[in-house]
């Protein structure tokens, strides 16, 4: 069939930031299929120049409000690496708890507010308040608890306050943590189970599309990697975080204010599905069982299943948070002051898994503790090439559908990646020439 197709979704909805889907087919030949990133660049690198290590995380957290905790913690890890700041076990545990809270929040938001309306044929979550009130209330409840973890441990879920280089400016009270634990077990866990049921009922609406690609995430010897670890590629195995540039290989494309990346192939996948494919056996058992119930198996090559992997992670975060709280309480909360005395100056790299995938921050400090060079590589930026490759495979496969249906499939594809476009345009590698 020789078909002409011209799709231009201007400012795609229900994603963070501004992107357009552009597809162009002439007489059955696909000329263009890509996600064009039109968000104005924000030039964080210029802002970072000369800033003190006390300010770095405050600034980089503003790269993205959606992933602000991820940026903040990754920035702190990079700074601590560069300045040789040792942190305590308690700090690490509290950070992991925060990551769980943020991941839970983000995954619930994506699954219920951004993706679910597609499955239910609604334009947004708001009409669902009338038609599926209990589902909406459940989503709100789960989100509230996730945000309360952020509010209590870090002062504020969006742009957290207490995590600073070397530790925390305030340690939560025991009673506050116990209350979170109670709510995790009494509210979030049953809600999580219900969520799995809801997702099972929607599974039929998930498009069947497969494209095998390279999956990149962190890998940790002892746990499902969210906070630190080694870089792991499903194609070629482990790479130390310090060598991340060998993996990311950024390049500029004209249709995007955000740079693209590639490693062993023309593109790679980061995010919940990559974490699942690389590390699923390290999830808590209940989460693995949940995944299976929702039809998600290891080595899944359907990008639409990313949403399902996020739901499985939500269950993991709920249960693993309880474990962390138990350890914190058992060890006794200590009123530690952040360790902010540098033992060296120079370069440091930090990497964590944030909801949308693997994130890198890389700073070089002068011996006054001010930044001379900074680089951040953001998950959504790393997914852009993969999204474009998916589109190029997907469009010919669904060519027989109507233009509206094709558009919806493409929109759902992009949304499945849970792209955070605001993030992706905000930080690009740069050398400051003094």
């Amino acid at each position, binding site marked *: 069939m020789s078909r002409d197709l011209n799709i231009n979704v201007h400012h795609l909805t229900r994603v963070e*930031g501004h992107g357009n889907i552009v597809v162009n087919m002439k007489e059955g030949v696909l000329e263009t299929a890509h996600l064009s990133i039109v968000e*104005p660049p*924000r030039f964080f690198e210029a*802002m970072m120049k000369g800033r003190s290590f006390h300010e770095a995380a405050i600034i980089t957290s*503003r790269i*993205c409000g*959606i992933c602000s905790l991820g940026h903040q913690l990754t920035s702190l890890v990079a700074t601590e690496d560069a300045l040789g700041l040792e942190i305590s076990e308690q700090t690490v545990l509290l950070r992991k708890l925060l990551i769980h809270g943020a991941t839970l929040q983000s995954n619930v938001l994506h699954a219920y*507010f951004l993706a679910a309306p597609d499955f239910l044929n609604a334009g947004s979550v708001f009409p669902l308040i009338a038609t599926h009130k209990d589902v909406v209330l459940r989503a709100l409840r789960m989100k509230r608890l996730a945000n309360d973890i952020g509010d209590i441990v870090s002062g504020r879920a969006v742009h957290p306050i207490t995590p600073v280089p070397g530790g925390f400016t305030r340690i939560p009270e025991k009673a506050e943590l116990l209350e979170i634990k109670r709510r995790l077990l009494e509210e979030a866990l049953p809600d999580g189970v219900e969520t799995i049921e809801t997702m099972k009922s929607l599974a039929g609406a998930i498009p069947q599309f497969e494209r095998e690609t390279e999956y990149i995430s962190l890998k940790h010897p002892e746990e499902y990697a969210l906070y630190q670890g080694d870089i792991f590629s499903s194609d070629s195995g482990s790479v130390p975080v310090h060598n991340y540039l060998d993996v990311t290989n950024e390049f500029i494309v004209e249709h995007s204010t955000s740079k693209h990346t590639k490693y062993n192939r023309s593109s790679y996948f980061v995010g919940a599905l990559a974490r699942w494919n690389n590390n699923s056996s390290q999830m808590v058992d209940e989460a693995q069982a949940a995944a299976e119930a929702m039809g998600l198996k290891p080595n899944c090559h359907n990008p639409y299943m990313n949403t399902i992997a996020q739901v499985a992670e939500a269950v993991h975060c709920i249960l693993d948070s309880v474990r962390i709280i138990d350890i914190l309480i058992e060890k006794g909360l200590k009123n530690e002051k952040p360790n902010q005395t540098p033992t060296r100056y120079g370069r440091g790299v930090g990497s964590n898994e944030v909801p949308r995938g693997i994130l890198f921050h890389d700073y070089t400090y002068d011996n006054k503790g001010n930044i001379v060079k900074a680089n951040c590589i953001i998950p959504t930026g790393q997914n852009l090439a993969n999204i474009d490759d998916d589109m190029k495979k997907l469009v010919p496969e669904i060519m027989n559908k109507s233009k509206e249906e094709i558009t919806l499939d493409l929109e759902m594809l992009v949304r499945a990646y849970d792209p955070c476009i605001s993030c992706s345009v905000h930080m690009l590698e740069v050398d400051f020439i003094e």
Partner: protein
Amino acid sequence: MKPQVAFFDFTSCEGCQLNKLNLENDLLDILKHVDIVEFREAMDDKADHYDIAFIEGSISSPSCVERIHDIRRRSDILVALGSCAVNGGINAMKNLHPIDEVRETVYGKDKYLFATLPAMAVSSVVKVDYEVRGCPMNQQDFLKLLIALVLGKQAPKYNSPVCVECKLKENECLYNRGMVCLGPVTRGGCDALCPSFGQFCTGCRGILSNPNLDGMLEIMTNHGISLDEAKKRMLLFNSNEVQL
């Protein structure tokens, strides 16, 4: 009829958008007062006229300028949400460097591919009726403004320093802990959130209308940081607002 409300985002981190979706406990009450007719981040719909348009983010490209004019034309009341929109916020830090240099450092020879302007407050392009300050915008503030608009009363204005709320909460002053804090010259209304959590005030709600900046710099340098650092600190969220 309920007011028709829309949300728009410009150059920003979208944290303010998220902060509205994070009003879980109040979201359903809010929806009793207003109809949300446009909210790209959460829904597909578009509308032609808005009783209240909430704007997040700074204006930083020619296409932003066009879009904000268009929104203003179609809105009765226009509210700037969050530091980026109110005064340029953290984005405005880039204005401290010559713009061409900034573009070149990032994109090299490809710098002309992507148009950019200095990061501007919404109010420096179109008329802004109300503002909700903070980075991210303060949720309680946002609710207060919304209720005020629903009741037809004027929105609260904040022109008292963060220290006031900090004192009312009986926090130990960070200056007594050897830290440096921007609370004395920063607009309150945040319930002194950062100092209450042991962190210095970063000035995210903007500087008071009639500040003693020299006095503030002197306080900071008397507490152990250099003048240069003190100035940088003050500019963190206020590069467009203060001249140092």
